[in-house]
């Protein structure tokens, strides 16, 4: 559950919406037809793959549902999603495959 107050939650939603719009509008609207530096372009391309694994790793190793104790079904589910996603390139295949492994493992243990 989220411990934010209603005001905090709405502040986050509005600022995230505004900030995201400004990122999208940046070159099209403000900077115009100017070239972006090659190194910055490189860095930007790697942002999602640099942020998201770090966000997810602690959730897999120390799951909230078990109070932080490492949990075999959840590790197996994460691994399944990773392997399915990497090989099939299918986002939904990875989501449903991972959850299927989680349910199977939870049922077995």
């Amino acid at each position: 559950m989220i411990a934010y107050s209603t005001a905090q939650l709405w502040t986050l939603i509005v600022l995230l919406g505004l900030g995201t719009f400004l990122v999208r509008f940046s070159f099209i609207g403000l900077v115009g037809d100017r070239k972006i530096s090659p190194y910055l372009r490189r860095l930007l391309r790697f942002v999602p793959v640099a942020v998201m694994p770090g966000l997810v790793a602690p959730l897999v190793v120390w799951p909230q549902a078990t109070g932080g104790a490492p949990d075999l079904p959840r590790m197996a589910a994460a691994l399944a999603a990773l392997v399915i996603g990497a090989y099939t390139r299918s986002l939904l295949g990875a989501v449903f495959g991972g959850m299927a492994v989680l349910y199977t493992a939870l049922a077995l243990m």
Partner: protein
Amino acid sequence: MTSHAFRKGFLAGLPFVLVIIPFGMLFGVLATEAGLNLAETMAMSVLVIAGAAQFTALQLMQDGAPLVVALLASLAVNLRMAMYSAALAPHIGAAPLGTRMVLSYFMVDQTYGLAAAEYDARPTAPLADKLGYFFGAVAAICPLWYLASYLGAVLGTRIPPALALDFAVPITFIAIIAPALRTLPHVVAALVSILLALALAWMPYSLGLMVAASVAMVAAAQTEIWLEKRG
């Protein structure tokens, strides 16, 4: 905008329906499970209209991260769109300001991807065709994101806790990233990010994640440069 180009963009966007509907519903369900009401869930999908960032914000709020950290990390996930903006600017930069603002709002991974491919294939097409194609793709994809979020939010109140949906968000993140691990620099970024995030988990306010992501980004860029030099 020309209706021919609009139709072409719309048809090109249709296959993404299969991804957008379940993904949007998943967001609606998980946002509701996390305690967001219908208005809050919909505001997020309408104002932000970026799945990965919405899931990031949701997770960090649940982790109890401070507002500033949740905001910055979610925005960081969207920084890739500055690159989209730079890539599309030469093609649609001549459009009126209002049109460019509306277009920017609807710049999501799928509409960008389709437009970039189309503009690369036909760089000299008239501006009206380029705009028509983009908004055709928008018409196929974006309204469904709102609708799917709404359906998920309504459905979310009826899902029993035994479904272990606590782990659906981590699984979703892995599913978003796994298909992107196609080159060595991407793998380096992911590994550095994971190892540092775990090693720095003791840092307050999820700052460890910020450090891990920054180092991972530079490590990936340097790996790519090294690979190019090596030839």
